[in-house]
């Protein structure tokens, strides 16, 4: 009992030291909070797939009542903004090439006549395919507007779709993108903090001083991991609050489950970070390694692109990526209100990564010596 207390007291001393080291400097203190706030605001406002503004050009050779009605419903819809009214087909290339317009709508001269005689009246839409996702979305929008025109003309389509999006009724990409940031944004900081923690001590010579004390590698590991985890989870909380209250995205699931997930995820991140730190001999190396792995971790996480669209080999690789499961867990708990039964499987890879990387880091403390 006395031994166990002494053992814990040694760790407590290390943890106290780590926190003091982290929070002593006002500039590094700010560094722990400001990036998390800024990045979540940036993502919230900047990163969106929602089509709210489509500049387009029109070549109206029909100039009839029907074409005017069609253009009025486009211009009045709030999404399309007419940036050019063209006189001939040769001008189309110029507006698309320059990027002034995302699409050009060409209404043929016989549009009015064909409609009047009850024949098909094709419209031509030229899209800027350099940005395929936006172009496809814009085309779908135009199709919807044209469909509405058809309905108004009394040509109801035979089959109709009645859309109900669950978990995100207006299909706002912000809803899809932001909750996973609770894991993703704080991971960058957790990785960097833990990667620098041992590397900094090695570079400044304090790690030797630490190794000659009676602290065991396990104690050093716990003493290094807990403060970084705390910082990571505090950052997650900050981002969580911004998403919940500033952006008003409703949280459906259990807060406890969310935090249990975040704790496992942060543990895995700290394991990776400390392993990097134990391998690196200088802070510069640690920083480089971290940036090297952050990009693939982000790409293979399903944060921006769905994992099932990736080639099979990459899909397998994502199992080693804690962020994949962190993103999945947070997104599902937050948006769908998934319970432990539904997201329980996400914990397995997270804890596996932690169980591999943390002992590796502890072993490296003593065995990676210059």
């Amino acid at each position, binding site marked *: 009992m006395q031994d166990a207390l*002494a053992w814990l*007291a*040694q760790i*407590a*001393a*290390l943890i*106290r*030291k780590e926190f*003091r*080291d982290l929070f*002593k*400097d006002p500039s590094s203190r700010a560094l722990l909070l400001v990036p998390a706030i800024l990045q979540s605001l940036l993502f919230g406002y900047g990163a969106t797939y929602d089509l709210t503004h489509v500049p387009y050009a029109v070549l109206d050779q029909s100039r009839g009542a029907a074409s005017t009605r069609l253009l009025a419903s486009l211009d009045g819809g709030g999404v399309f903004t007419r940036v050019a009214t063209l006189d001939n087909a040769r001008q189309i290339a110029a507006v698309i090439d320059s990027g002034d317009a995302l699409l050009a709508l060409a209404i043929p001269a016989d549009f009015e006549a064909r409609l009047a005689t009850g024949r098909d009246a094709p419209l031509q839409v030229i899209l800027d395919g350099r940005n395929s996702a936006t172009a496809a979305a814009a085309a779908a929008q135009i199709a919807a507007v044209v469909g509405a025109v058809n309905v108004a003309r009394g040509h109801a389509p035979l089959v109709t779709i009645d859309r109900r999006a669950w978990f995100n009724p207006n299909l706002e990409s912000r809803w899809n993108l932001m909750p996973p940031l609770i894991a993703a944004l704080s991971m960058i900081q957790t990785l960097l903090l833990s990667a620098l923690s041992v590397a900094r001590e090695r570079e*400044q*010579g*304090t790690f*030797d*001083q*630490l*190794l*000659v*004390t*009676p*602290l*065991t590698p396990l104690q050093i590991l716990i003493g290094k991991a807990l403060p970084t985890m705390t910082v990571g989870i505090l950052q997650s909380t900050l981002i969580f609050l911004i998403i919940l209250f500033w952006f008003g995205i409703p949280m459906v699931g259990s807060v406890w489950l969310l935090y249990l997930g975040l704790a496992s995820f942060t543990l895995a991140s700290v394991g990776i970070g400390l392993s990097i730190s134990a391998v690196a001999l200088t802070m510069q190396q640690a920083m480089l390694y971290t940036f090297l792995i952050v990009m693939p971790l982000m790409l293979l996480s399903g944060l921006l692109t769905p994992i099932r669209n990736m080639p099979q080999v990459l899909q397998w690789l994502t199992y080693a990526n804690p962020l994949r499961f962190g993103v999945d867990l947070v997104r599902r708990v937050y948006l769908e209100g998934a319970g432990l039964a539904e997201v329980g499987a996400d914990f397995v890879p997270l804890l596996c990564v932690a169980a591999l990387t943390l002992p590796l880091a502890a072993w490296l403390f003593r065995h990676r*010596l210059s």
Partner: protein
Amino acid sequence: MTGATVVAEGLQRSFEAPGGGSLRAIDTLSLTVRPGELTALVGPDGAGKTTLLRMIAGLLTPGGGRLEVLGTDVTRDPQRVQDRISYMPQRFGLYEDLSVQENLDLYADLHRVPQDERGPRFTRLLKMTDMARFTARPAGKLSGGMKQKLGLACTLVRAPELLLLDEPSVGVDPLSRRDLWAIVQQLVEDDGLSVIVSTAYMDEAARCAQVHVMNHGRILASGTPKALCARVQGLTFAAVPPAGVHPRVLQARMLAAPEVIVDATPHGGAVHYVRQPQADAARLAEALDGAASAPRGEGLEDAFMLLLRQHDNGTHHALPEPDERTPASAVAPDNPNVSPIISVRNLVRRFGDFTAVASTSFEVLPGEIFGLLGPNGAGKTTTFRMLCGLLPATEGQLEVAGRDLRTARARARARIGYVAQKFSLYGNLSVRENLEFFGGAYGLRGRALRTQVRAALERFDLDPTARSGELPAGYKQRLAMATGLLHAPQILFLDEPTSGIDPLARRAFWRTITGLAGAGVTIIVTTHFMEEAEYCDRIAIQDAGEMLVIGTPQQVRDKAGADRGTDMNAAFIGIVEQARATREAAV
């Protein structure tokens, strides 16, 4: 136009002190430096030497007064001065991944040295520094001494009119130090270069034409070494301790009587001391405690110590007397009844195909002060790190307090204390926070921790709230010692503990060590200051990984040959050169 290289009048410069308020680094200082001469700035840490050099180099603007360098007002036109001088800071910025040649090229490019001048200049610099063989080697792979020589060569890629050197020989072994000074002296004699050098080594200052002794931002005295030495004429003596008493014990007793003794150092089996000019004869006899005493010639260090003690009234660096719990007597190394506390047999360490330590064996007895000496790159630090369990040995056995610390359970490590070569405590944290952390890591807590921390703060006269990274060098060293001793270890490892600290702080440091040894703590110490070998019971000299000699300071001096006299520095150089000659003859 005075013709002087540097003229300073009423110069001032203050810095913001860490805890608010201001710190006067240079305080109404006036001095004149003559051209074509070697000029030394000496003084304790924080005397303002570096600040003065940086102002002369136009890197800091004076807070007041006048400063003229090479006839130009440096405050008004620093660039004009910088075009004509070269400045080598304490930590010269070598690019460690670039080769020796690439470093030279880079600095030649930075200083826009014309291509046609480079060839002859480089050839001369490489010849002077004896580095022509190593041009392809990355700077990071050079030994400390060679790095410093390369730094000097890079500083000299163009021919300056004035060369400023800030403590160029800190952390450099006696052989490299001798080479470095040969280069500087050659430049002064052949090229008529003016050189201003700051140094903590009085033997270096003694080679200069003019010496300025600084303290608290002022000049205490200026003059030729001879003129300065005249101040202690008739005050210098050598005392021979009675048989069985180590000179350091007598020395510690003498230093405890500052009202009669200005300074005392162990030297060649005796204690060299300087007495106070108005020393009370009875009190002096008491301090000597029956040791026979005879007059000796005076040195610059004697004069320096007298000047500082007079200026500071002896209070400045006085360390509280360490409590001597047991009578101070070193264990005789040949005593068969005592088993060694450290034993090393056939220790080998290789890095790839490079052998850093070759088949080394030695033993250290409890309560001994054991010195590991050797040039830069000799394998001292490698041996040291293996002993502390920080580096695995390639071959051989080593035992510290009966165990190999590398594989021993954590508790075994609680018996040793470790003070690293460079300051390696948390610079961000305060003195108290550092002590509390390491105390906690050593398993102290609650009242025991508080008591120990308080005792350490008192004993080493440390300000608990000061930020550790901002302490002056001497105080950093004290904090490192305080940390290493917090848990009352049986064995204390000290890796070049006195590197870069001034003579006053070194005296204080060795008094602490003498006290610890008296209390039965075993001390393993590496050092570049050969005179510090005199404090050791036994010393070992390593070079190129080989153990050259091991024994008492007297035995080592004897081995070097009687012609080397009582000077440890000369004995060291003699032994290393002898071994190198034998090795080269064998190849």
